[in-house]
């Protein structure tokens, strides 16, 4: 956590309504500053995250988090999808305590801690809130800052999970355990695909991590990253063609040697480490602050554009056919960003309400169709199994969502 961010969070006394959400983050404030209606204690160590109770009544809740572990830890309150962050407190040093204060709406949530600040976290547990809905208050600027902070937290969380997943994936690949690496490939990529626009804003980082062969060749770049590894894991037939439907797959290509594999594995890990360093830097927070909520809204839009232009054509994961995983992760990331600005759009009168309604419907319809092909948890069918009619239907659903979504930023800022 940067100094400026610490200050910000410590002084944020207001509540921000978060999406349809459920909870309103009041910021991470010193314990003495709040008069919580309901104090809860959380004990975090390197392998557990014990919350004093698994249920509470709606209203202002304060989670007093004590770190009894050996690493810096974080505490998260997640929405019922297990993905959307509705409150988080970070940078809790070993032996220290910090408090997360939220205005809790009725609903189901998850709690978890993340010692070491990377990975999936530990002690994931259900948490339920009963009672009546609580009206949010607080001024607009503060609510917007809360949305930005929550988006920053989401991005950091995804990259923190990406890093160890990539380390394992790269190790398996380098060691020649292709079965393990194949199984991990689409799951690892999901963390990246949810936040792809962030990486793409970083000059040559995305090209190193995620370029396809045809693009790297076209731009004269040294081809590295996920897709180079993918081709080693799914070795093409001798007569196969590349994603341009023209270049022979084996032209200027051969399966990597063990030494090449090690170099590619190390390179990918280093690049993802660089991404992780960036999203934890002051530069990242500054960039988000400067973009404001428009940055979040634009993130939602650009992730869906990724789907509309790249994923739907099946050209992203040419050798593995795992495009639907990327597709679903893009949609999840887009929806996450939308959920953070949803209330701002909905507050813009009848037009805003209608827009939000259209976008809600659009996500729901697209998710329902995607669910017929699988899930990120259980896996998706190969892209090649989709018929032309399937692709047409998905395209229609993307258009139905993308058209109103394209007006989100303008509405939020109006």
């Amino acid at each position, binding site marked *: 956590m940067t100094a400026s961010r610490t200050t910000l969070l410590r002084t944020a006394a207001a509540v921000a309504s978060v999406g349809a959400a459920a909870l309103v983050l009041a910021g991470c404030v010193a314990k003495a500053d709040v008069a919580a209606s309901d104090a809860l204690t959380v004990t975090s160590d390197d392998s557990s995250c014990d919350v004093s109770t698994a249920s509470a009544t709606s209203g202002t809740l304060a989670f007093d988090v004590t770190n009894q572990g050996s690493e810096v830890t974080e505490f998260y309150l997640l929405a019922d999808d297990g993905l959307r962050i509705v409150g988080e407190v970070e940078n809790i040093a070993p032996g220290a305590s910090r408090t997360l204060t939220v205005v809790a709406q009725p609903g189901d949530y998850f709690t978890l801690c993340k010692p070491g600040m990377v990975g999936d976290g530990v002690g994931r547990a259900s948490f339920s809130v009963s009672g009546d809905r609580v009206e949010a208050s607080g001024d607009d600027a503060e609510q917007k800052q809360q949305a930005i902070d929550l988006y920053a937290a989401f991005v950091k969380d995804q990259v923190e999970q990406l890093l160890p997943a990539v380390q394992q994936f790269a190790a398996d690949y380098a060691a020649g355990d292709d079965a393990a690496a194949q199984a991990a490939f689409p799951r690892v990529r999901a963390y990246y695909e949810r936040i792809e626009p962030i990486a793409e804003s970083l000059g040559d980082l995305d090209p190193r991590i995620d370029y396809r062969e045809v693009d790297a060749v076209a731009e004269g770049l040294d081809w590295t990253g996920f897709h180079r590894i993918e081709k080693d894991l799914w070795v093409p037939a001798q007569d196969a063609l590349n994603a341009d439907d023209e270049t022979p797959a084996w032209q200027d290509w051969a399966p990597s040697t063990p030494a090449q594999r090690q170099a590619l594995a190390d390179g990918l890990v280093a690049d993802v480490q660089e991404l992780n360093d960036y999203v934890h830097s002051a530069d990242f927070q500054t960039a988000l602050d400067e973009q404001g909520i*428009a940055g979040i809204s634009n993130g939602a839009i650009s992730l869906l554009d990724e789907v509309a232009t790249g994923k739907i054509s099946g050209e992203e994961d040419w050798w593995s056919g795992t495009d639907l995983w990327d597709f679903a992760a893009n949609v999840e990331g887009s929806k996450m960003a939308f959920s953070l600005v949803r209330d701002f759009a909905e507050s813009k009168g*009848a*037009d805003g*309400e*209608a827009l939000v*309604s*259209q976008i809600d*419907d*659009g996500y729901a*319809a697209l998710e329902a169709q995607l669910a017929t092909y699988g899930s990120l948890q259980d896996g998706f069918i190969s892209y090649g199994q989709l018929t032309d009619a399937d692709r047409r239907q998905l395209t*229609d659903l993307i*258009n*139905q969502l993308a*058209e*109103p979504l*394209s*007006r989100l*930023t*303008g*509405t939020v*800022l*109006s």
Partner: protein
Amino acid sequence: MTDEPRAETPVPGRGPESGVGTAAAAGDGPAVGDGPAAARGLGLSRRGLLGLIGAGTAGLVVGAVGGTAAGGSIAAANAAAAGAGTVHPFTGAHQGGITTPVQDHLHFAAFDMEDRATRDDLVSLLQDWSYAASRMTQGLDVSASGAVDGSPVAPPDDSGEALGLPASALTITFGLGPDLFGKDGADRFGIADRRPAVLTALPRFRGDDLDPLASGGELCVQACADDPQVAVHAVRNLTRIAFGRARLRWSQLGFGRTSKTTSAQSTPRNLFGFKDGTANILADDEAALDEHVWVAPSDGPAWMAGGSYLVARRIRQTIETWDRLQLQEQERTIGRDKREGAPLSGGGEFTEPDFAAAGTKGGPAIDARSHVRLAHPDLNDGVRILRRGYNFVDGNDELGRLNAGLFFLSYQRSPEQFVTLQRALSQDLLGEYLRHVGSGVWAVPPGASPGSFVAAPLFA
């Protein structure tokens, strides 16, 4: 007024108040799009639509509308035909794009309603389309904020490629397909009991090789203009407005009109190199229009009175084979000479063919299986149609043949007229060089009344 261009330098507030609408009553009238679902549209400003329409009827060229004023308006249309700024009104007794002097370019599109679309969605779509069409046919952007006057952080309402271009005689004609009135036993939009009895899918014809994905459609849009960019702009923006309610099913670009609807227009040639549409129904032939083109109140249903039925056929021409045909064989196949378009029985282009006349080699001068004879009203109980087709060339096929042909469009009082003529053509010598690869039929409602929208009476 007829030369009113799109503003070359759009300025804030440009629109009906500051532009063509000045001739009309000012104020916020009942707006076209103010339906139950208007809020889900593109955020189009609907202010001043009445102003637009008022200006259209008051000051703009009234092209070839039917009815008592037709004669006078034809003259006006012809006088202005040379100007790219020609503007045809969107409202009126009949929709534009039927008797309107045939423009040089076409973009035709067929749509299907989305699976989850409701009756409100259909109504709001027709409202939003009508509003957008009423603007674009005047040479205006699709909405008041248009291509460049909206929020910098929102995508523009209008795609912008027609900025600076005149109206170019644009007409936009909307049609409703049979499936809209119920499909597979489901009456999705609550209009099954209002289906015109004659609106059913066309029967199969000899020579049909139809692609189902390039046929049919629950809605259709015919955009005709003298500038292809203006026609494409119209369909592109109407498609965008439809996202979430209707999806594009198929579309077709056309160039080089293959018929005429006014006597002042010369008879154009099709890709076989022959004049086409010499005997078409013309806009000033009110009696023929009433008998063959416009749905009469007695025909029913009431909401179609003043409307028409549109048949579209995508007819692939095997032109490479045709081009190797001897001239006399080409002429025998058509039944007219190639230079003038005169019937082979003699005379000039407009001489009536004499099917009894003997030729020089024995037999009739006009072959019994020639196109002109089989399609002639005299051999079809007087059945006539108003043709409005265009040539198309969509690149080439995988065998290196030009993917070319005729995009046939005809308007008639009942689709049965087309069926009669098409059946008569089953022995047509020309059939050897034709393949029907796309097909559709739509009910084309009468023109919208000012302040209302196309097909409004259907939902009343």
